[in-house]
């Protein structure tokens, strides 16, 4: 019985950990590997994320760049990944895609702006 509970605890713990680490900040990763840099750019222009939906592989780097004169943010719905701070014109923000799944995000300054990240294996 004790072993069984421990296993549940461990499983829960692992779920918890994976839940928080599905997408990590680029700054926290030493090496983004060969699949990452330069690809998967999302341009923020005219109060929209372009492309609005992006499909990437787990481990890929995703970079947003703000081309508006308004500050924008990238904030995960349900706090599935680290949010950006306010991005001024031409500022960038990057994350590394974690576990496969669909991640919704929005700009907390202009919440009408929404986007989706689809992470594949």
């Amino acid at each position, binding site marked *: 019985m004790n072993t069984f509970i421990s296993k549940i605890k461990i499983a829960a713990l692992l779920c918890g950990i994976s839940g928080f680490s599905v997408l990590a900040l680029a700054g926290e990763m030493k090496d983004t590997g060969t699949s990452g840099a330069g690809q998967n750019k999302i341009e923020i222009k*005219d*109060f*929209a994320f372009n492309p609005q939906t992006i499909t990437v592989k787990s481990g890929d780097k995703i970079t947003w760049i703000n081309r*508006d*004169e*308004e*500050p924008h*943010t990238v*904030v995960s*719905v349900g706090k599935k990944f680290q949010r950006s*701070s*306010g991005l*001024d*014109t031409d500022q960038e923000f990057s994350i590394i895609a974690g576990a496969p799944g669909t991640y*919704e*995000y*929005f700009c*907390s*300054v*202009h*919440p*009408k702006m*929404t986007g989706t990240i689809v992470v594949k294996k």
Partner: protein
Amino acid sequence: MSNYISHDHEHDGIDRRGFLKCMAWAGTGVLWTISGGVLVSKTLAEVAKTGSSLPTATDLSFLQISDSHIGFNKAANKDVTETFKIALDRINAMPTPPSFLIHTGDISQLSKPEEFDTFDQILKSCRTKDVFYVPGEHDVINDGGKMYRERYLKNVQGKGSGWYSFNKNGVHFIGLVNVLDLQAGGLGQLGDDQLEWLEDDVKGLGADTPIVVFAHIPLWSVYPKWGWGTSDSERALGYLKRFGSVTVLNGHIHQVLQKVEGNVTFHTAMSTAFPQAAPGDAPSPGPLNVPAEKLRSMLGLTSVQYKQGKTALAVVDSTLS
């Protein structure tokens, strides 16, 4: 005077053609007034000559400034501190100084401490010292409004995320926060806690108490596609329906818009930093680039006068040109 609109405040609201005409004046350096349901306008030159545009015998006058965006330095206005200073100069030059100021948000461009510092420094030149604040979304970007509250809401004993009310000369003022905890895909939002507080706050007031509500994002659906509205504002206005005079002052959209609905007058103020396009007139609601010589005619401030016994408050917009 030919430049006026007469409409019945109590019945059918503002005549559309006349309203649009006034909107055009607002953009070209003219004052306009809503007083007792009559909308009149005078040029700034006329005001400078006679000083007579503002109602003289008033019981209370206050001034709304909005959307200073200190830290903004793009083409639409390279020097927002200068235009903010000019706005304060205009306040200092008023024949009767306002009792206090209301700042309806977006003090800063990026919620940076140095932007708030600059604002505070410039504001020292204003001879009216009493200022009441509500945050804009630009003021609360990185910390959920913590820094803003510490700086600007300390003296008002804000509840929840910073909302509060106070009384002046028999007028009940309500400062609301609709820029926090916004939901993906949504508009401005007040939230259940704030709405419950509001219901309770006005419960004991007589229906003849004049109400002034101020918040950053408009509390009416100006243009939801651009996020120019507040998702749960209807509920808030429901609590205010029984009052004979409700004036709602907002910022956010950097232009004067006005709507009258029953006893409620909705009014948005100009920015002191840069104009924005009319709803739907641009791909997005970003800063609007206008010729340098035209800029100041699209920036400005709003003066509000209350005279006891009158139902409507007089709302006067003036540009910085």
